[in-house]
């Protein structure tokens, strides 16, 4: 077995607010092997971004963070900001969703890449840093990098800015790259280019990747293992094949069933009814129970922990995960749409409209 570069254990994040405590992350743990790509998927508010920010020590001071984050054996939680700055960029680099806000608008992009290089390489001279910046821009696929190195972020398109951010992330040869929705703001053809740049960055640095996204297609193509998050917890983890072909958590199955597919025709999608619970007032028991078609009384008792389900390293947080063996989303979830009785009444009622023009 290879050693883990990043180990997250029992991570919890709480935000005190006027209305009470928001429990954004509730006991998340994962191990990232060297060079491995882990996808973290989940919908808005599932805690996937907050988890990443907690690992990087980038949460506001009001956040209460507990648990353990070890990078190459060293505990990061509780480290001083100065000490963390040595790890950020060099050990763990981060790519954010919006390249307009993660780049500094008042400096050319080359300066910003050089800044990262100089921070971690005191022997490097400005001229050398600039040359390396040009190299990096070329590596991530920016045309005529020797000219672009002096451009400001606003002179670049969204896709190009995100490639600059990737260049900064790979500048110091990190061991881990955390990418938080790196392509969400981009058009699909540009998304493909940026994902290629990200793959190049991984190949060049050998870094492990934590890819946080809501796009299951991106996860399918770029990760080895996947963790599914719901209401601040991991509810299923496994190899990318486990998750996509034999999901053992009703939520994962529901997500896959709600996806329209480009590669096949499905008569009907199976949405998950209801919406995720408020993280202010979590009900006891399984947080997915209110939306789950398999729900029964046991689900309202103890919150199910992650337990082995099927293949090697495949874990699911569901009391009844074995019931999902060999089923599809269509058999578990209902293909709900319009209220059929109300729709029939509405269709029957004589149309009030006669397209008469108002008298002029």
């Amino acid at each position, binding site marked *: 077995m290879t050693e883990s570069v990043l180990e997250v254990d029992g991570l919890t994040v709480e935000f005190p607010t006027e209305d009470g405590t928001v429990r954004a992350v509730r006991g998340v743990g994962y191990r990232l092997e060297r060079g491995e790509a882990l996808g973290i998927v989940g*919908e*808005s508010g599932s805690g996937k971004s907050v988890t990443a920010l907690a690992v990087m020590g980038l949460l506001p001071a009001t956040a209460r963070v507990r648990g353990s984050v070890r990078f190459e054996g060293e505990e990061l939680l509780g480290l001083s900001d100065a000490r963390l700055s040595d790890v950020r960029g060099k050990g763990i680099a981060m790519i954010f969703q919006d390249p307009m806000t993660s780049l500094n608008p008042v400096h050319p992009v080359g300066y910003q890449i050089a800044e990262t290089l100089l921070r971690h390489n005191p022997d490097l001279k400005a001229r050398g840093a600039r040359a390396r910046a040009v190299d990096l821009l070329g590596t991530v696929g920016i*045309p005529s990098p020797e000219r672009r190195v002096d451009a400001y972020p606003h002179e670049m*398109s969204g*896709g*190009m800015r995100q490639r600059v951010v990737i260049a900064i992330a790979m500048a110091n040869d990190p061991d881990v790259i955390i990418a938080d929705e790196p392509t969400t703001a981009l*058009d*699909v*053809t*540009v*998304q*493909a*280019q940026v994902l*290629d740049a990200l793959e190049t960055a991984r190949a060049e640095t050998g870094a492990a990747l934590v890819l946080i996204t*809501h*796009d*299951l*297609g*991106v*996860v*399918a*193509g770029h990760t080895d293992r996947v963790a599914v998050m719901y209401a601040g917890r991991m509810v299923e983890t496994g190899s*990318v*094949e486990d998750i*996509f*072909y034999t999901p053992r958590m009703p939520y994962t199955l*529901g*997500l*896959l069933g*709600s*996806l*329209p*597919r*480009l*590669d096949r*025709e*499905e008569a*009907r*999608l*199976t*949405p*998950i009814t209801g*919406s995720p619970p408020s993280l202010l007032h979590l009900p006891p028991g399984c947080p997915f129970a209110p939306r789950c078609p398999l729900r029964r009384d046991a689900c309202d008792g103890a919150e199910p922990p992650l337990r082995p389900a099927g293949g090697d390293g495949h874990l699911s947080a569901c009391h009844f995960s074995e019931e999902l063996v060999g089923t599809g989303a269509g058999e578990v979830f209902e293909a*709900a*749409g*319009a*209220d*059929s009785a*109300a*729709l029939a009444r*509405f*269709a029957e009622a004589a*149309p*009030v*409209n006669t*397209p*008469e*023009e*108002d008298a*002029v």
Partner: protein
Amino acid sequence: MSAPAQVADALSPLPGHGGTGEPVLQVRDLVKHFPVMSHGVVRRRVGDVHAVCGVSFDLHENETLGLVGESGSGKTTISRTVLGLESATSGQVRYRGRELTELSRRRMRPLRRELQIVFQDPYASLDPRISVHEIVAEPLRIHGRYGPGADDEVRELLRLVGLNPEHGNRYAHEFSGGQRQRIGIARALALRPRVVVLDEPVSALDVSIQAGILNLLMDLQSELGLSFLFVAHDLSVMRHVADRVAVMYLGRLVEIAPARQLFARPAHPYTQALVSAIPLPDPRKERARTRITVQGDVPSPVRPPSGCRFRTRCPKFAGQLTVSERAACVEEVPALVDRGGGNPVACHYAESVELL
């Protein structure tokens, strides 16, 4: 630029593919330019954003026509111009034989009952100061149809779209994104329209919620015989809902075909690049795919490239064409005509490719 008659025929659905009878909506040579003004004290017009350039299509009864394209392709501008929310620079929009672009606001008004829209952002498109009941009742009031029994009608509309009619006295902020989009749909249905423009109706929603809205829209269409002009950037959604799909690039239509055909055998290099760029949520398939990738970004619509607007990013132009073949791409705007593949394609060198 006037489209020849056979082009108009080709824009109608092929036999056996969704939509029947006469087109309810006919768009011909639609052009929309937005002025670009200079900065400074005296603001002069220094150019135009060529948002929509000579777009023609038909929408038939009970049909969903999908309009796809990336940011800046002009798809939203088309949807707004069709409804008269933007005035067209030139071109025609005919609804059941009546020309809409020349109608006064007053003459347009009764027609608005039949042409409705659902907006993208369910947070910005609902009035936060009035109750949901009032939001859905508003179109009825405006068109003088809020008579006795209208309260029940509103409750029925809420029930129809999957909301609890008891919640009519709540405000929009008390609902989730998916529920708000249902409110927007109920409002659009209130006047019993025939044509509904759906402008990115699910792109702000999480997938598990999005699926419910798509099912709802498809139920409404099959039961009420509505025609949908469905604007979206998500090709997977398009494949699921649309009978025919029109692909836009930088203000121009580049390909239009029945959905099944468009995804099975795209003929325009841009359509191929789009289909190719969508990640499939299937690890084995996704890793085994061959990809057609494009370089660079969409050029500025203020100074679009001459000839074919896609040529600056076109993998075919860059990699396969000879210098003499390229001349046509640079000099000649490719017409949207059937080039032997069975559907109209605006590429001089169109060639169907199987990608999925």
